């Protein structure tokens, strides 16, 4: 299927092939909007992923006219980026206590994890845009490797390897950048 060859009906029916074509065609456009507001890099890529995924999973159902698709997508991207710009650099740890309880993480460990977060962002920024997309879709949207591959291109094996390589790169980066915290959290 050609990158531009997707119908609104197929998107609304959640057809994988149409969604992949949509992603391929619209990613550069949405990314350009996000970079214009947020500057190039990780945050712009992540917001672009969120916008495209939110459109495919929810907001495509609001649209009944293909003619307004690009204006709508662009508006979604601009709005999301403006919102992101307002809270830039701030993490919302409001519900983290529940998260730590679920994972049996002590208060001290939780505090170290929070302190590592800015470094994680820096390490994520060193990954390729495709790797950043895969991580966002896998960890935020909870997608399987197969689903991530269907979205951004690649087999489930390829996405599995990509994510594994990313995790190893991030681990090394964190160990290098914050050895003090790393040693306290990770068993030798």
């Amino acid at each position, binding site marked *: 299927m050609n990158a531009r060859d997707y119908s609104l009906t197929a998107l609304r029916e959640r057809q994988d092939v149409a969604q992949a074509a949509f992603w391929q065609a619209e990613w550069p456009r949405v990314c350009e909007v996000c970079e*214009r*507001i947020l500057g190039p890099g990780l945050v712009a890529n992540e917001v672009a992923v*969120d916008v495209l995924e*939110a459109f495919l999973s929810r*907001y495509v159902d*609001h*649209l009944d*006219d293909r*003619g*307004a698709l*690009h*204006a*709508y997508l*662009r*508006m*979604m991207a*601009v*709005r*999301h980026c*403006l*919102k992101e710009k307002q809270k830039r650099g701030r*993490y*919302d740890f*409001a*519900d*983290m206590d529940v*998260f730590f309880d679920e*994972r049996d*993480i002590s208060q001290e460990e939780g505090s170290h*994890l929070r302190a*590592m*977060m800015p470094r*994680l*962002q820096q390490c994520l920024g060193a990954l390729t845009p495709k790797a950043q997309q895969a*991580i*966002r879709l896998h*960890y*935020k949207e909870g997608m399987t490797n197969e689903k991530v591959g269907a979205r951004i291109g690649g087999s489930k094996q390829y996405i599995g390897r990509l994510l594994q390589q990313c*995790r*190893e790169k*991030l*681990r090394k980066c*964190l*160990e290098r950048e914050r050895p003090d915290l*790393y040693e306290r*959290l*990770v*068993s030798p």
Partner: protein
Amino acid sequence: MIDGHELVDTLLVMRQRGGNDDLCPELVTVARVYAGAASSEDIQIAAMHLDGCELCRETMETMRQWDAPQHDSEHDSVRVIQIGRTSRRRGLGALIFAAAAVAAVVVVGVWQPNEGDLGSSSSREFLVKGKTDSIAVAVQRGTAHFAAEPGSGLEVGDRLGFFYSAREEGFLILLDVSATAGMTVLFPAGKTTSGAIGVGVERPLPDNGAVERLDGCEWLIGVFSSRPLSVADVRAELQQQLPTRGPGCTYQPQINDARTTWVFEVERDEN
């Protein structure tokens, strides 16, 4: 204690929690208006929503600024140009008609020209696709604002603002052409090629003008094209086709590669 990969997993899950942006349902209606695919009911719904949603207003304004014609701020100031030909045929009746025409192009409750500044636009302005390529000439005479119609009289001292409508993205050159006093490029001022424009209705151009005393035929010419045109080439073509003699001021120039050539014959009331 956990192993290194568990640490990365935990951090990534922490980082991605929350942050889902719930969109206003009306945003799709606003998008239809912006794309030029709106009904009048859509326009009212969108206008009401924008009134109450600051983030959506900011979104619209950002997009509107991006899609506005490109120009240099140094050319924003009002420039004096020579427009007008003496005419005894038109009186105030034509101006009243012109004022009614202004009302017709205003999208209900949405497009709000700023008093005293014809070239500026409101933050609540909507942009919809024009059905055709055209230019509206807004006149400020004292405290009165109205749209000039071809054949309606202008007076010395009138300030003019220009608003274009375009059916698709492209390029525009707007010139003041006088049979006796040469040509002035109004948009894009100081450029060698035509200026980029977006789709829309009644979108302001950055350059204004004022009417000065001048004899002879005179026209405003807007050349819309799908690709950039050389200003020098357009001027040369216009010059070649200028009517040289005769009592009337009929002028319908044909410009190579223009998709639309808009012609406005300028006439002046004696005052």
